[in-house]
C-alpha cells in the first residue's frame, strides 16, 4: 500500500540536488521537516533528526517513494502516526523552499508549547489563586474551642457526602467529592505470574542460588535456596458510558479513572457513547485538568445516545486482544439503557466475558431498591457479568474495593439476578 504521492514538484522536489544529499542545505530541510512533524504532534527527538539525515544519506534520493519510506522508517513509531506523517510529508516536500521560509517565519507561533500557553497559564493562575485563598481560610482564626466544633462538623459533613447521590450534589459538594475520589486507592488483588523471585519459603528450589551458596562451603553443605512465583496486579480495563443518561456519573467516573490510572500501571480506559474512544494516554497526565481537557477535545459523543452493542463490538474487534491479555479485570460502567434496544449486545457481552478474567458491572440504577432488569439492554448484559454493583456515591465507589480484591472465582452474579427476576415474573 504505497501512498498516493504527487510527482516530485520540479525544482522544489528533494531531487533537486541531482541525487546527492547536497550537504548542509539538505540537512537543514530535514530538520525543518522534523520540526514540522513535531508541531503536528509526533514525538520527534533530536536523535531521530540525526538518524533521518544519516538514513537519507544511505538510501540516496533517486526515487521519491524511497525518500518517503526512509523518513517514514525513522519518524513513525506507531501505526496511528502514519496518517499524520503522510499529510505532513505531502505538504512539506511539495515545495520545501517555500515552506522553509514559512517555517522560519512561523516557527515561534506553531511550536506546541507556546500555542498551549495561554490556556495553561490561565489555569495555573486560577490554581495559584485558589491555593492562596485556601491557605488564608486554613489559618486558625478563633480559639481552640471553635476549631473543635468546626472539625466535628466536617466529619459529619464528610459522612453525609459519602452517602449522597452524585446526581443530587451541589457544585461545591461535587468539587469535594472529586477531591475525595482523587485520594482513593483501589487495591486490586494480585495474581501469580510465570516469573520467579528468590523467597525463603518458596516452594521451588532455586538451583542457581543453591549452587552458589553451596560453593561457599566448598561443596560440602548443600543448602537449598527457594524461589516462588512473583505476584502482580492484573491489567484493569475500564469501559465507561458517557451518554446523556449517565452524564452526572460519567464525569465523576472520569475523575475516578484518572485516580486509578495514576495509582498503578496497566490501566486501560475507554469511554463510549455512540462510538468508542481510548483515553488511556490522556489520563496518564498527572494534571487532572489537562487530562480532562485533552479528553474533551478527543471525545466527540458526550451526552449523546448509547450504542452499547456496537461499541462493545468495536472493542472486541480492535482492542480486546491488545488490552485483555494477562488476565485483565474489566469494569463496565453503564446504566445499560441502549438506543439500539440491546441489538447484538448479548453476543458481544458473551465474547467480552470470555476474554477477561473477571467482569464487574457498575450500574448507577442499582441504587433504587426496586430495581428490576426490564430494559432489554440490561437483560442482555446481566447473564455475562461476575459482579454487579451500584455506583452513585462515594460509598459505592469505596465498595468496589471489596469486589476488586476478590479475584478467586467467577461468580456470575448477574445470571442469578436474571433468574430471580424471571421467577418473579412467572408468579
Amino acid at each position, binding site marked *: 500500500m504505497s501512498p498516493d504521492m504527487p510527482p516530485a514538484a520540479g525544482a522544489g522536489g528533494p531531487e533537486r540536488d541531482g541525487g546527492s544529499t547536497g550537504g548542509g542545505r539538505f540537512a537543514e530541510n530535514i530538520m525543518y521537516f522534523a520540526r514540522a512533524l513535531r508541531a503536528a504532534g509526533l514525538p520527534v527527538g533530536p536523535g531521530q533528526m540525526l538518524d533521518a539525515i544519516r*538514513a537519507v544519506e*544511505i538510501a540516496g534520493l533517486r526515487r521519491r517513494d524511497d525518500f518517503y519510506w526512509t523518513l*517514514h*522508517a525513522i519518524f513513525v513509531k506507531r501505526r496511528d502516526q*502514519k496518517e499524520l506523517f503522510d499529510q505532513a510529508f505531502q505538504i512539506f516536500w511539495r515545495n520545501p523552499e517555500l515552506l522553509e521560509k514559512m517555517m522560519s517565519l512561523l516557527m515561534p507561533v506553531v511550536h506546541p508549547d507556546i500555542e498551549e500557553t495561554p490556556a495553561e497559564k490561565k489555569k495555573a493562575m486560577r490554581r495559584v489563586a485558589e491555593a492562596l485563598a485556601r491557605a488564608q481560610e486554613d489559618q486558625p482564626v478563633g480559639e481552640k474551642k471553635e476549631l473543635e466544633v468546626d472539625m466535628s462538623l466536617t466529619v459529619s459533613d464528610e459522612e453525609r457526602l459519602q452517602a449522597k447521590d452524585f446526581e443530587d450534589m451541589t457544585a461545591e459538594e461535587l468539587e469535594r467529592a472529586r477531591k475525595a475520589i482523587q485520594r482513593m486507592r483501589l487495591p486490586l488483588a494480585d495474581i501469580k505470574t*510465570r516469573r520467579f523471585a528468590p523467597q525463603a519459603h518458596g516452594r521451588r528450589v532455586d538451583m542457581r542460588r543453591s*549452587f552458589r551458596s553451596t560453593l561457599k562451603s566448598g561443596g560440602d553443605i548443600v543448602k537449598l535456596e527457594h524461589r516462588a512465583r512473583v505476584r502482580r496486579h492484573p491489567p484493569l480495563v475500564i469501559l465507561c458510558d458517557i451518554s446523556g443518561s449517565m452524564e452526572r456519573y460519567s464525569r465523576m467516573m472520569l475523575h475516578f479513572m484518572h485516580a486509578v490510572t495514576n495509582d498503578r500501571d496497566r490501566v486501560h480506559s475507554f469511554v463510549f457513547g455512540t462510538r468508542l474512544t481510548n483515553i488511556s494516554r490522556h489520563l496518564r497526565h498527572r494534571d487532572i485538568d489537562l487530562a480532562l481537557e485533552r479528553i474533551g477535545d478527543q471525545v466527540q459523543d458526550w451526552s449523546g445516545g448509547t450504542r452499547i452493542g456496537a461499541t462493545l463490538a468495536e472493542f472486541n474487534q480492535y482492542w480486546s486482544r491488545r488490552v485483555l491479555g*494477562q488476565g485483565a479485570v474489566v469494569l463496565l460502567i453503564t446504566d445499560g439503557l441502549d438506543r439500539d434496544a440491546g441489538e447484538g449486545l448479548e453476543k458481544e457481552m458473551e465474547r467480552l466475558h470470555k476474554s477477561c478474567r473477571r467482569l464487574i458491572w457498575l450500574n448507577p440504577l442499582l441504587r433504587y431498591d426496586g430495581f428490576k432488569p426490564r430494559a432489554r439492554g440490561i437483560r442482555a448484559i446481566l447473564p455475562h457479568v461476575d459482579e454487579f454493583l451500584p455506583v452513585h456515591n462515594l460509598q459505592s465507589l469505596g465498595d468496589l474495593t471489596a469486589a476488586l480484591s476478590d479475584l478467586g472465582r467467577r461468580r456470575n452474579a448477574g445470571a442469578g439476578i436474571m433468574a430471580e427476576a424471571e421467577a418473579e415474573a412467572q408468579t
Partner: protein
Amino acid sequence: MSDAPRALPETIDATVELLSQGDYVADRSLATVAFLSLRMGRPIFLEGEAGVGKTEIAKVLAHSLGRKLVRLQCYEGLDTASAVYEWNYARQMLEIRLAEAAGETDREKLARGIFTEEFLIRRPLLQALESHNGAAPVLLIDELDRTDEPFEAYLLEVLSDYQITIPEIGTIKAAEPPIVVITSNRTREIHDALKRRCLYHWVDYPSAERELEILARKAPGAPERLTREIVGFIQALRKMDLFKVPGVAETIDWTKALSELDVIALDPETVNNTLGVILKYQDDIAKMQGSEAARILRQVQAEAAALG
C-alpha cells in the same frame, strides 16, 4: 542454510532482489526499512496482524545473507535463564566431586574452574553476540508483546550496547552487532523507549497483485484460475467485518489444500467445506457459511470474467 556469508545489499533495489531470492515478495516500503536497518545497524520492529509474514522476513534475511538465524520466541515469564544464559549445574556438581576425589582443596581454584565458558549454556541472546563463519547472525525476537515489561527493559539494555554481563565471567560484547528483527502482534503496546531504538514498520495485508505473486512462489503447482479466485475471495473477506480476517499464511495454506484436493476452480460447496483453513473463529465461520460465501464467490467470479 547456505554456507558463505554474503555482503549486505548496497541499494534498495538490491534489497528487493535479495528478499525475492528468498521467495519473499516485499513491497518497496518494507524493502526500504530492511535496507536501512542493515546499513544503519538498527533493529527492525515489525508490527502487524498475525499471518502477514513478519517472522518470515527474518528467516529469509538469514537465509539469503548466509547468516545463522537465532530465534528467541517470547512468552509470558521469559526470564534471563531461558533467554540469555544458564549454568550447567549438573556438570558443575560433577566437576566438584571429581576435583574432590582428586584431592583438590583450594576453593578459589575450584570456583574459578567451575565458572568458565565450558559450563555455560548459551541461550539465544548470548548466541546472537557470537559470529558464525565470520559474520554476525540474524536475531529474531518473535512476538515480543507476549513477554512482560521487565524483560522488555532488559532487552533495551542488550540492544543498545550489544553486550551481556555475566558476573562470574565478565562482559561479553559482540564483535559485530547481529541483525535484529523484532515482531509484535500488538496484543500489548510495546514501550516507546524500545521502539525509539528501532526502525518501525507496519506490515499490512498485501495487495491482490502482490498476493498472486506470493502464491506463484509459495504454491507453484496450483492452477492459475484457482489462484486468481482464491486471491479474489480472500481479498473480499478482508473487507468484511470478521473477528479475524485471513492472513497471507492462510491464503497459502488454502491454495495448497485445494491443490491437494485437485480443485481447479472454486465452487460454493468446496468453499463451505474448507472454510476452516482460512477462518479460525467459529463466529466468523458461521457468518460466512452458506449463502454469504456463495454470494462473494459469484462476485469474484463475475469480476474475473469481466477482466477476461
